[in-house]
Protein backbone atom coordinates (compact mmCIF):
# COMPACT_ATOMS: atom_id res chain seq x y z
CA UNK A 1 0.00 0.00 0.00
CA UNK A 2 0.97 3.62 -0.35
CA UNK A 3 0.96 5.82 2.74
CA UNK A 4 1.98 9.37 3.49
CA UNK A 5 4.50 9.75 6.33
CA UNK A 6 5.12 13.01 8.11
CA UNK A 7 8.17 13.51 10.29
CA UNK A 8 8.56 16.22 12.90
CA UNK A 9 11.28 17.88 14.92
CA UNK A 10 14.41 15.76 15.45
CA UNK A 11 13.06 12.97 13.23
CA UNK A 12 12.55 15.43 10.39
CA UNK A 13 16.09 16.66 10.90
CA UNK A 14 17.50 13.10 11.04
CA UNK A 15 15.88 12.21 7.71
CA UNK A 16 16.24 15.62 6.09
CA UNK A 17 12.63 15.66 4.92
CA UNK A 18 9.30 16.44 6.52
CA UNK A 19 7.19 14.20 4.33
CA UNK A 20 7.69 10.86 2.58
CA UNK A 21 5.33 8.87 0.39
CA UNK A 22 6.12 5.23 1.06
CA UNK A 23 5.16 2.07 -0.82
CA UNK A 24 4.97 -0.38 2.00
CA UNK A 25 4.56 -4.16 2.15
CA UNK A 26 3.75 -4.53 5.86
CA UNK A 27 0.63 -4.14 7.95
CA UNK A 28 1.24 -2.04 11.03
CA UNK A 29 2.68 1.32 12.03
CA UNK A 30 5.50 -0.48 13.84
CA UNK A 31 6.43 -2.38 10.68
CA UNK A 32 6.42 0.87 8.73
CA UNK A 33 8.84 2.38 11.24
CA UNK A 34 11.15 -0.62 10.88
CA UNK A 35 11.12 -0.19 7.12
CA UNK A 36 11.95 3.51 7.50
CA UNK A 37 14.81 2.66 9.86
CA UNK A 38 16.29 0.47 7.14
CA UNK A 39 16.18 3.34 4.65
CA UNK A 40 17.28 5.98 7.18
CA UNK A 41 19.59 4.42 9.81
CA UNK A 42 19.74 7.78 11.64
CA UNK A 43 16.17 7.06 12.81
CA UNK A 44 17.16 3.95 14.80
CA UNK A 45 18.24 5.84 17.92
CA UNK A 46 14.78 7.45 18.19
CA UNK A 47 12.87 4.17 18.36
CA UNK A 48 12.57 4.00 22.19
CA UNK A 49 11.02 7.45 22.52
CA UNK A 50 9.25 8.23 19.26
CA UNK A 51 5.46 8.53 19.13
CA UNK A 52 3.08 7.58 16.33
CA UNK A 53 -0.06 9.21 14.96
CA UNK A 54 -2.33 7.68 12.34
CA UNK A 55 -4.78 10.03 10.68
CA UNK A 56 -3.99 12.61 13.36
CA UNK A 57 -4.80 10.30 16.27
CA UNK A 58 -2.21 9.04 18.73
CA UNK A 59 -1.52 5.38 17.88
CA UNK A 60 0.45 2.31 18.96
CA UNK A 61 2.94 0.24 16.95
CA UNK A 62 0.28 -2.44 16.53
CA UNK A 63 -2.05 -0.06 14.69
CA UNK A 64 -2.94 -1.58 11.29
CA UNK A 65 -2.51 0.78 8.35
CA UNK A 66 -4.66 1.28 5.25
CA UNK A 67 -3.94 2.68 1.80
CA UNK A 68 -3.97 6.47 1.92
CA UNK A 69 -3.45 6.75 5.68
CA UNK A 70 -1.59 9.79 7.01
CA UNK A 71 1.10 8.52 9.39
CA UNK A 72 3.27 10.74 11.55
CA UNK A 73 6.32 9.89 13.63
CA UNK A 74 7.68 12.35 16.13
CA UNK A 75 9.77 12.67 19.27
CA UNK A 76 8.11 13.30 22.67
CA UNK A 77 6.11 16.49 22.46
CA UNK A 78 7.51 19.59 24.18
CA UNK A 79 5.05 22.40 23.54
CA UNK A 80 3.81 24.95 26.05
Amino acid sequence: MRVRVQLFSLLREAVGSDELVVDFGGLTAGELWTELEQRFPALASFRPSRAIAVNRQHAQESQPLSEGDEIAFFPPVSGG
Partner: protein
Amino acid sequence: MYIEITERAISTEDALKKLDLKGLGGLVTFSGIVRPTDIEGRPLSHLEYEAYTEMAHEELHKLCQEAAQRWGVHQIAIMHRVGQVEIGEPSVVIAVASEHRAEAFAACRYLIDTLKQTVPIWKKEICML
Protein backbone atom coordinates in the same frame (compact mmCIF):
# COMPACT_ATOMS: atom_id res chain seq x y z
CA MET B 1 -13.99 27.74 22.36
CA TYR B 2 -11.16 29.33 20.38
CA ILE B 3 -7.92 27.65 19.26
CA GLU B 4 -5.11 29.35 17.36
CA ILE B 5 -1.65 28.16 16.37
CA THR B 6 0.15 31.15 14.97
CA GLU B 7 3.49 32.62 13.96
CA ARG B 8 2.40 36.01 15.24
CA ALA B 9 2.87 37.36 18.77
CA ILE B 10 0.17 36.41 21.29
CA SER B 11 -0.87 37.88 24.64
CA THR B 12 -3.21 37.36 27.56
CA GLU B 13 -5.25 40.29 26.25
CA ASP B 14 -5.65 38.61 22.84
CA ALA B 15 -6.95 35.43 24.46
CA LEU B 16 -9.34 37.35 26.73
CA LYS B 17 -10.90 39.03 23.71
CA LYS B 18 -11.98 35.62 22.44
CA LEU B 19 -14.11 34.86 25.51
CA ASP B 20 -17.75 35.71 26.11
CA LEU B 21 -17.83 36.49 29.83
CA LYS B 22 -21.58 37.12 29.94
CA GLY B 23 -23.02 35.67 33.14
CA LEU B 24 -19.69 34.17 34.24
CA GLY B 25 -17.93 34.95 37.50
CA GLY B 26 -14.40 33.50 37.35
CA LEU B 27 -11.69 34.06 34.78
CA VAL B 28 -8.28 32.37 34.94
CA THR B 29 -5.45 32.82 32.47
CA PHE B 30 -2.09 31.14 32.07
CA SER B 31 0.82 32.37 29.96
CA GLY B 32 3.98 30.41 29.41
CA ILE B 33 6.80 32.84 28.82
CA VAL B 34 10.15 32.02 27.20
CA ARG B 35 12.80 32.03 29.90
CA PRO B 36 16.31 33.34 29.23
CA THR B 37 18.12 30.11 30.16
CA ASP B 38 17.76 26.41 29.49
CA ILE B 39 17.23 23.86 32.25
CA GLU B 40 20.96 23.80 32.97
CA GLY B 41 21.19 27.57 33.20
CA ARG B 42 22.84 28.18 29.82
CA PRO B 43 21.77 31.43 28.17
CA LEU B 44 19.35 31.04 25.27
CA SER B 45 19.07 33.18 22.18
CA HIS B 46 15.44 32.24 21.51
CA LEU B 47 13.16 29.24 21.02
CA GLU B 48 11.81 27.71 17.86
CA TYR B 49 8.47 25.93 17.99
CA GLU B 50 7.21 23.48 15.40
CA ALA B 51 3.73 21.95 15.29
CA TYR B 52 1.92 19.16 13.52
CA THR B 53 -0.65 21.85 13.02
CA GLU B 54 -3.74 19.93 11.92
CA MET B 55 -3.33 17.30 14.62
CA ALA B 56 -2.44 19.90 17.26
CA HIS B 57 -5.72 21.69 16.46
CA GLU B 58 -7.64 18.45 16.82
CA GLU B 59 -5.89 17.53 20.08
CA LEU B 60 -6.51 20.98 21.56
CA HIS B 61 -10.14 20.73 20.52
CA LYS B 62 -10.39 17.38 22.33
CA LEU B 63 -8.82 18.91 25.46
CA CYS B 64 -11.41 21.69 25.41
CA GLN B 65 -14.20 19.12 25.09
CA GLU B 66 -12.78 17.17 28.02
CA ALA B 67 -12.64 20.36 30.09
CA ALA B 68 -16.26 21.08 29.14
CA GLN B 69 -17.34 17.62 30.24
CA ARG B 70 -15.33 17.51 33.46
CA TRP B 71 -15.87 21.04 34.72
CA GLY B 72 -18.73 22.44 32.65
CA VAL B 73 -16.51 25.22 31.28
CA HIS B 74 -17.29 26.35 27.76
CA GLN B 75 -15.42 29.63 27.44
CA ILE B 76 -11.86 28.59 26.60
CA ALA B 77 -9.25 30.25 24.40
CA ILE B 78 -5.90 28.62 23.65
CA MET B 79 -3.20 30.31 21.57
CA HIS B 80 0.20 28.75 20.83
CA ARG B 81 3.11 30.22 18.92
CA VAL B 82 5.09 28.42 16.24
CA GLY B 83 8.31 29.61 14.63
CA GLN B 84 10.78 31.83 16.40
CA VAL B 85 9.74 33.05 19.86
CA GLU B 86 11.96 35.52 21.67
CA ILE B 87 12.98 35.50 25.33
CA GLY B 88 10.24 37.14 27.41
CA GLU B 89 7.49 36.50 24.87
CA PRO B 90 4.56 34.17 25.63
CA SER B 91 4.75 30.89 23.73
CA VAL B 92 1.32 29.81 24.93
CA VAL B 93 -1.69 31.58 26.43
CA ILE B 94 -4.78 29.91 27.86
CA ALA B 95 -7.87 31.73 29.15
CA VAL B 96 -10.81 30.00 30.83
CA ALA B 97 -13.98 31.57 32.20
CA SER B 98 -16.59 29.78 34.27
CA GLU B 99 -19.44 30.50 36.64
CA HIS B 100 -17.28 29.91 39.71
CA ARG B 101 -13.53 30.06 40.17
CA ALA B 102 -12.75 26.47 41.14
CA GLU B 103 -13.72 25.16 37.71
CA ALA B 104 -11.74 27.82 35.85
CA PHE B 105 -8.59 27.12 37.89
CA ALA B 106 -8.94 23.35 37.49
CA ALA B 107 -9.63 23.50 33.76
CA CYS B 108 -6.82 25.99 33.04
CA ARG B 109 -4.31 23.87 34.95
CA TYR B 110 -5.51 20.71 33.22
CA LEU B 111 -5.28 22.33 29.80
CA ILE B 112 -1.68 23.51 30.13
CA ASP B 113 -0.51 20.28 31.81
CA THR B 114 -2.16 18.07 29.20
CA LEU B 115 -1.12 20.31 26.30
CA LYS B 116 2.49 19.75 27.32
CA GLN B 117 1.99 15.98 27.42
CA THR B 118 -0.14 15.21 24.37
CA VAL B 119 -0.33 18.01 21.81
CA PRO B 120 2.13 17.57 18.91
CA ILE B 121 4.20 20.71 19.28
CA TRP B 122 7.97 20.75 19.75
CA LYS B 123 10.30 23.31 21.20
CA LYS B 124 13.90 23.74 20.12
CA GLU B 125 16.23 25.75 22.32
CA ILE B 126 18.60 27.94 20.35
CA CYS B 127 21.65 28.69 22.49
CA MET B 128 23.51 31.97 22.59
CA LEU B 129 26.58 31.74 20.36
